[in-house]
């Protein structure tokens, strides 16, 4: 699916990165612990999180992720948004859904975790 599909499935609003909605995404990761995200170097493209601090953007950047979804309608402040803009290609979305539901919706629409066990 594309970032645009993620946006639609999650009834999300775009915070920034509109120009990159056509980016293809295959795997996602839902976490509030950034070290848990950093523990799997696989090509995860979407990060769902309840945190809104700059380290979320940094983590996505280190992982080459394309999209961050803030759950429960949370919005990061301007400094976090400008950090994402600086980094280029990252799309920031906010969804009214809570973490579990947001992950479930994406999974049932074909997105996977990307870390096989």
């Amino acid at each position: 699916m594309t970032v645009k599909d993620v946006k639609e499935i999650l009834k999300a609003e775009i915070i920034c990165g509109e120009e990159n909605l056509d980016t293809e995404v295959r795997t996602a990761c839902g976490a509030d612990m950034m070290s848990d995200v950093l523990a799997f170097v696989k090509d995860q493209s979407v990060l769902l999180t309840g945190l809104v601090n700059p380290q979320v953007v940094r983590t996505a950047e280190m992982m080459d992720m394309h999209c961050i979804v803030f759950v429960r309608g949370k919005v990061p402040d301007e400094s976090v948004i400008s950090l994402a803009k600086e980094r280029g290609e990252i799309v920031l979305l906010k969804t009214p859904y809570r973490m579990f539901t947001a992950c479930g919706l994406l999974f049932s629409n074909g997105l996977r975790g990307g870390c096989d066990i």
Partner: protein
Amino acid sequence: MPEKITLKYAVDGDDFTKAGLASSDLKHTLKQIGYDPGFIRRVAIAVYEGEINMVIHAGGGEITADIAPDKVEVWLADSGPGIPNVELAMREGYSTAPIDVHELGFGAGMGLPNIKKYTDDLQIDTTVGVGTTVYMLINNN
């Protein structure tokens, strides 16, 4: 590229929101040189976890990165409290981070294990009350 490039970064220990600047710049430089994305990601994650540790546990410090075609070596040196028991610190889930660090997405005790996972060599030289130098080697193969 020349045989070797050395980059140095001062890491501010007072501002958690800035943590990651050095890792970000290093990653950017590696990208410009044209390294393999998987290799860059390993370097970026390991150095980022190390940089975060410097900020949350040691009040900042200095990062030196030696970039060569076949490897990247990084030294993260701080004058923080040191690590009394390195073996314990290396365990998954062991953390002395204050609880407010959790709000920032860190402090789960996974940083050093992550660094170990992504590096080809990891050496922690530490003295309680003096500071810590974390050395990491990532081979480009």
